[in-house]
């Protein structure tokens, strides 16, 4: 073991953990750490423009690589600016480590300059956090932080380090010698429970796989096993927003996303199935709608690494606590050992039913030759980027839902969106985090103009670090999703949902030193997208789209899954301002 300062320990511990990049912003309380970063070359530091950006970049990095992301912020405002990102990562179970500076230990509690009760403020929005008051414990705590962030259900952690702790010296604890505490969540599913699931697989007449972000968090092996299971059982599969890509969109059993803006066939299958197999999803209210009417005829199986997720909102018949990869391995082993049986008499009828639902073609929209429809823009983007090494991030709003509906994801870790928290301003920094992790890939942020403005300062980061991210803004000059709800639920009273005084995005691009493109004619769409793709650098793409397009399908408030709206014609008199108490 080696004697070193706390600041050096931070850098050493990050290296030991295999960290290659840190997203951060300096300030008085982290200067010793920045000094250490300056004196080495193993860890790259990406200087952001706002600490919220740093945390979302760390999230984008983590979601696209499966490795934990790291952010470094100063005390006080630096730490409070990180709160939204931490909450976002908590809701979507993303492993990130935030290191914050703190005033020296002898000043804590005195309302010192840039003092904030960081561990107090971040306690409810982290999986775990630590205030380290003794340099001798610092390196071990950082190793524990990585352990906690990545083991079990992943999540954000924060280590708060007072400045005097950074200056003091102590012995460094290497990674292997760090006590990773008693925190060893259960990862292997109970075999007897898994046997019950296999019974259901063998007998189900109308089965459905319902997958979520847990499959992606479990790693690439989980997606591979899921694909085997779907192929061999020939059951239909749907997924939440967070789970897109674990099963390929081109796969023949794919029903598309389910939920509030999910596909007709996916939601009706959920409503009509007799066996629902939830793999790593959490019965979010965007999925279930009215709980009482949610999938009323099914036996429900729930595989989740977090025991508290099971029976939290929906009572299930079989609960299996474990890591998706290990559980699916065991499911396949048992099911194959018993002869890989399914209810072959009943399944064709179920598929025939699904085929009818698919024939409704619920994503149909009225295209136009004079204005660009947002759906059309995404269809063209999809067509022109097909087969490319492509990563997509999004902001939050209608464009996000259209992106989920109209873009196809063939692999996990290719789709980064703020699901649980719905954080406008996530997409641009997240796209930079993804690009930093995958320098040669095509990274596109599908954005709404309003969300994009929330963290647009990060274009400076993209420029400085040569991250050629493409900002594909579906500009409807509206807080579109808010406007849609006001139209359908609030008597068309459009209270503050206009995006007024927008900047000239092309000039803005020039001001940042990157490329700006604006189009409003559908005839120019393909050429413009190709120009964006061809440009070797960041692009701000101002795609002027239809202003009043609504996002369908939509399960209106107060309705169960089988009463979804498919288009504008359906909305007349259906919603009647009911259910506006909900978000």
């Amino acid at each position: 073991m080696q004697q070193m300062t706390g600041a050096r320990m931070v850098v050493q511990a990050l290296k030991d953990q295999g960290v290659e990049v840190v997203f951060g912003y300096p300030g008085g309380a982290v200067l010793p750490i920045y000094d250490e970063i300056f004196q080495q070359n193993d860890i790259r530091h990406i200087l952001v423009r706002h600490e919220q950006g740093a945390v979302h970049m760390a999230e984008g990095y983590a979601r696209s690589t499966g490795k934990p992301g790291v952010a470094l912020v100063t005390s006080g405002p630096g730490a409070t600016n990180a709160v939204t990102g931490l909450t976002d990562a908590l809701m979507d179970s993303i492993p990130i480590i935030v290191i914050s500076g703190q005033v020296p230990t002898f000043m804590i509690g005195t309302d010192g300059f840039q003092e904030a009760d960081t561990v107090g403020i971040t306690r409810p929005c982290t999986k775990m956090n630590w205030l380290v008051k003794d340099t001798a414990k610092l390196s071990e705590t950082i190793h524990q932080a990585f352990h906690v962030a990545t083991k079990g259900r992943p999540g954000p952690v924060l280590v708060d380090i007072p400045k005097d702790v950074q200056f003091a010296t102590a012995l460094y604890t290497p990674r292997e010698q760090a006590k990773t505490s008693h925190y060893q969540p259960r990862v292997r599913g109970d075999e007897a429970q898994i046997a019950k699931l296999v019974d259901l697989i063998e007998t189900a007449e109308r089965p459905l796989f319902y997958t979520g972000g847990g499959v992606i968090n479990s790693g690439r092996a989980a997606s591979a096993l899921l694909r085997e299971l779907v192929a061999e059982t020939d059951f239909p599969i749907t997924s939440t927003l967070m789970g897109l890509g674990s099963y390929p969109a081109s796969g023949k059993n794919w029903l598309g996303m389910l939920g509030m803006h999910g596909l007709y066939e996916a939601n009706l299958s959920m409503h009509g199935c007799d066996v629902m197999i939830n793999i790593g999803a959490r019965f979010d209210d965007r999925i279930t709608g009215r709980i009482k009417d949610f999938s009323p005829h099914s036996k429900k199986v729930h595989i989740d690494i977090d025991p508290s997720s099971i029976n939290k909102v929906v009572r299930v018949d079989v609960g299996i606590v474990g890591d998706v990869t290990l559980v699916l391995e065991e499911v396949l082993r048992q099911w194959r050992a018993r002869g890989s049986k399914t209810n072959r008499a009943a399944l064709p009828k179920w598929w025939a039913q699904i085929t009818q639902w698919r024939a409704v073609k619920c994503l149909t929209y009225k295209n136009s030759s004079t204005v660009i429809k947002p759906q059309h823009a995404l269809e063209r983007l999809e067509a022109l980027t097909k087969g490319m090494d492509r990563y997509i991030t999004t902001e939050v709003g209608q464009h996000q839902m259209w992106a989920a509906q109209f873009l196809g994801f063939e692999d996990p870790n290719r789709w980064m969106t703020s699901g649980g928290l719905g954080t406008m301003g996530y997409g641009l920094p997240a796209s930079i985090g993804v690009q930093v992790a995958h320098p040669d890939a095509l990274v596109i942020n599908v954005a709404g103009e309003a969300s994009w403005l929330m963290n647009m300062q990060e274009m400076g980061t993209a420029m400085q670090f040569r991250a050629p991210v493409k900002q594909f803004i579906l500009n409807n000059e509206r807080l579109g999703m808010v406007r849609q709800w006001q139209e359908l639920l609030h008597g068309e009273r459009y209270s503050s949902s206009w995006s007024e005084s927008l900047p000239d995005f092309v000039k803005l691009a020039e001001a940042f030193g990157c490329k700006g493109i604006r189009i409003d004619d559908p005839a120019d769409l393909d050429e413009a997208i190709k120009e964006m793709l061809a440009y070797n650098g960041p692009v701000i793409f101002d795609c002027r789209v239809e202003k009043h397009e609504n996002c369908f399908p939509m399960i209106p408030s107060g309705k169960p899954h089988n009463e979804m709206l498919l288009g504008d014609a359906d909305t007349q008199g259906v919603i009647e301002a009911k259910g506006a108490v909900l978000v």
Partner: protein
Amino acid sequence: MSALNIKKGSSSHSAYELRDPNGELIESHTLAVVVDNESGVLARVIGLFSGRGYNIDSLTVAEVDHEGHLSRITVVTRGTPQVIAQIKAQLDRLVPVHEVHDLTAEGPSVQRELALFKVSGKGEARIEALRLAEIFRANVVDSTLESFVFEMTGTPEKIDAFADLMRPLGLREIARTGVAALSRGA
């Protein structure tokens, strides 16, 4: 589109069930939670209860293993069976929590609480207070010509009962420790 007409708290028109589906069956459970004795752990446990809207009827905490750096939190909470199950699962997933025991569900347990009562009065009331204290096996730990402080250990129900009796006799203040509990047997 028709105008809004939503009654406060109404849930018949909402997409989600806003009423608690098992609002009827409320049970009281005593949980023993063994945690790392580190700063912030109690705040994390309490924050879980307040953040998720669970009840705390009583809470006690003290270090029980100095070597192992462990504290024991005894918490009495109320909720439907589903909520109680959630509380246990949520507690169990907190990183510094080592063990969660539901003493109510895991078999018979002993529950004790210590309370101090200040009762002031003269004449008959004073004599009656002393007589009842004897019956309840409460000790006099302080006395003046016009007041007593009684100390009593017992179940929360016994303490409630004694407090009810003391109230007309001049009860001024009560201090209670909250419940400490252990399962019975080896």
